[in-house]
């Protein structure tokens, strides 16, 4: 029995092919994982299944209904949780539940669902005042109301800390019956083991469907197989690092954070953050969304004034002399923050200008950058129209254009597919060997392995600092994720 049947489905947005002639069946009573990077077509596929979007070609049958003609009948028997938090932030937890119970026409007995989600204590709190993990739980609670036959969950675990991630999947497993079908999308390959069946999407196509064990029983093997299915990846020497020249320095600790504090009213966004990074080191700040990574980051590069403490870059105090400190710094922001209405070349030219590359050398440097980043075919395209991976590459190029000795990268790989991430880390590793000091944030636990040292961040505080191996050994864990969970549990973690 299939809950969803799809035949030759195609969906285009303008010139972009989002779903490329897909056929698939989703079995009833199973948890199916939809795995893929940003822009691989996960969200579009889910929206097509419930009739929020209409297909260009092909057929969909959802619970034996046609989502094109019977949208209201389809939505009456499913639970859909969109990727973006869909609850009303100015209503309380209880009021949101009340609303969704009425919309679904089910009873207002929330005791079970509140206990399940640990939200009982917070039922009178405004949804906007909940932490990231709790928001996801509230969204899930509203979706689960009325025990729908089919649950469609769009990246419920993105940006959530590892403990909450485990709780979310457990919550879903505990609250469904054996007849419930779940479709769960994620960008993390390592979540595959949670599902009965995995569907892996790449550029609008299915590259694998079946149980994850068939591909490999460890995360490592699974990942390698997926890369193979995506067309393979060969490690090459980094062109970017090859001719990279940095200013010599005799400062031992190139980046220093000295007791950084950021307070908003009575709330500590960052508390006593202290670390020192050696020249050529890759230092990772790891933690869930809202832990204070980005705030620390902004203080480190002088975009936000610390309430207390300071940071030094190449020995220059960022509070006293921000312009000079920043001149040694390349910064890549979390979101694509280049000018979408400028072409690739114009963006590069602009950043060459603001980073103060002398006019006479500019032309030469631009040619170099275009060559090593392979921008030849893209240079006259508007940046906003670039594919995601190229956008990421352009952001990096702009951050590196003045050959800074220090690189700050704020979640540079979020949304990028596994091959893109591998490629990215090859460059970073090669640059660090050249002596570039790198500070990077991420919420991919597996990326911690690429760092020389990491600082685990939770609720605005550093909960542990050290090399990945040291941290793993300290709590006897195999993976970074397990390490984080154990450290948090040891520190009486969990939320409030």
């Amino acid at each position: 029995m299939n809950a969803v049947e799809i035949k030759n489905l195609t969906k285009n947005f303008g010139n972009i092919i989002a779903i490329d002639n897909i056929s698939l069946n989703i079995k009833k009573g199973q948890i199916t994982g939809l795995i893929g990077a940003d822009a691989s077509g996960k969200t579009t596929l889910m929206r097509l299944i419930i009739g929020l979007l209409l297909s260009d070609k092909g057929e969909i049958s959802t619970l034996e209904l046609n989502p094109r003609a019977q949208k209201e009948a389809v939505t009456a028997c499913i639970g859909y949780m969109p990727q973006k938090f869909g609850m009303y932030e100015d209503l309380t937890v209880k009021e949101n539940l009340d609303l969704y119970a009425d919309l679904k026409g089910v009873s207002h007995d929330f005791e079970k669902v509140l206990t399940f989600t640990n939200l009982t204590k917070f039922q009178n709190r405004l949804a906007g005042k909940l932490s990231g993990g709790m928001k996801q739980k509230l969204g899930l609670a509203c979706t689960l109301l009325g025990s729908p036959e089919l649950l469609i969950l769009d990246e419920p675990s993105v940006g959530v800390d590892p403990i909450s991630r485990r709780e979310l999947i457990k919550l879903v497993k505990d609250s469904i019956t054996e007849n419930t079908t779940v479709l769960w999308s994620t960008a993390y390959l390592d979540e595959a083991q949670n599902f009965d069946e995995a569907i892996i999407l790449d550029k609008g196509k299915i590259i694998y469907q079946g149980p994850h064990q068939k591909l490999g029983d460890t995360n490592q093997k699974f990942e390698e197989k997926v890369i193979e299915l995506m067309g393979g990846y060969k490690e090459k020497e980094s062109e970017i690092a090859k001719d990279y020249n940095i200013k010599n320095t005799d400062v031992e600790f190139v980046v220093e954070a000295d007791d950084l504090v950021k307070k908003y009213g009575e709330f500590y966004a960052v508390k006593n953050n202290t670390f020192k990074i050696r020249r050529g080191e890759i230092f990772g700040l790891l933690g869930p969304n809202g832990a204070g990574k980005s705030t620390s980051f902004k203080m480190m590069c002088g975009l936000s004034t610390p309430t207390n403490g300071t940071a030094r870059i190449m020995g220059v105090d960022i509070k006293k002399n921000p312009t000079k400190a920043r001149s040694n710094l390349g910064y890549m922001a979390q979101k694509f923050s280049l000018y979408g209405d400028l072409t690739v070349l114009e963006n590069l030219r602009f950043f060459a200008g603001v980073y103060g590359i002398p006019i006479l050398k500019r032309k030469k440097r631009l040619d170099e950058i275009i060559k090593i980043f392979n921008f030849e075919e893209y240079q006259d395209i508007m940046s906003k129209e670039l594919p995601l991976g190229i956008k990421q590459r352009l952001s990096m190029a702009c951050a590196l254009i003045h050959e800074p000795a220090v690189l700050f990268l704020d979640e540079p790989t979020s949304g990028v597919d596994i091959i893109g991430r591998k490629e990215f880390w090859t460059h970073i590793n090669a640059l660090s060997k050249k002596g570039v000091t790198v500070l990077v944030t991420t919420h991919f636990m597996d990326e911690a392995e690429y760092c020389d040292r990491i600082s685990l961040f939770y609720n605005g505080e550093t909960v542990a600092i050290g090399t990945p191996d040291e941290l793993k050994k300290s709590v006897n864990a195999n993976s970074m994720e397990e390490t984080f969970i154990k450290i948090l549990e040891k520190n009486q973690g969990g939320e409030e």
Partner: protein
Amino acid sequence: MNLKIISALVKKEALQILRDPSTTIIAFVLPLMMLLLFMYGLNLDTPKVSLGLKIDDDTPQISNLIQSFNSSKYVRAKVYEDKDLMYKDISASKINGAVIIPNDFSKNLEKGDTASMLIITDGSYVNTANYVQSYPVAIANNWLSQSSYKTYLKPPVISANTRMWYNQDINSHYFILPGSFAITLNLVGLLLTALVIAREWERGTMESLLGTRVGKLDIILGKYIPYFILGILSLLFNVFLCIFVFKIPFHGSFVILFSVSALFLLTAIGIGLLISTIFKNQFLASQMSLGVGFLPALLLSGLMFPINSMPMFFQFLTMILPPRYYVTFIESEFMAGTIKNIVLINTIYLSILAILLFIAVYEKTSIRLEEGGK
């Protein structure tokens, strides 16, 4: 359509309205400020002009004329001895104009000849200049009819008696304040509703809603109803302020006032929702609602500028916008009481617009993330 769903959506919207201080500000504080502004700041009545007088004729009758200038309620007169000083004061804008009576003024009158006087106005203030031009003539004629020269005055062929109906004191507040309801109801009905659907799209709550069994009508009525109630409350507040606080005379019927206002409110909500559904973006929606809501209510409704003196194009434009019908109605309802024809015609127009707008909103609302399908 499902009543339970609609009532849940209305309840949700009500909670949001109560929690959002900006809604209260737009519905109650802004109208209060506007009424205060219209009451004390804006005045379309004829202003008092200050005139310089230079009298070269010193007969006793002429001193009576000076008296007449002094006692006029339209003129503040100042007698000058020195002509140059007077000219200086005109150029310094201390006075709006001047009247010079030559020394042969009474002599000519006595002979039964035409006596002339010189009126100087400051042409850089066109409006005031018109008053400066006409007041002295009226005052002088008035004085003449009561002076000893009146024997030379021919009795006028037509005697005109003027009576200002509906607004005997020609007090512009009596129609501007009620007229401002058109602006207030537009703010509540149009601006607020334009923001709310766009906000649901921006915040992602709309996608969540559309993932449940809500239908098109549920979504639409879930917005119409709460903002209609809010608009009526705001109207009540406005009417109370106008009639009981600012003491604007009201000659009409409250039932008719509220019924027609309700219709107008529906057109405003319709436009707001239409904007919101089309643009799905709060910034664009607020700009658009200023453009098609607030400004026409102020400029193209006949509230500030008479419609029949507008260029033809704009006269046609006013016909497809609701404020014109409402302003005509509300001004007459306040000042003249219920006039069957006016109420009827404007009700018909407003009803047609309200229905057309509802249909447009229904057609444009989609229960998907893109248009099309059933």
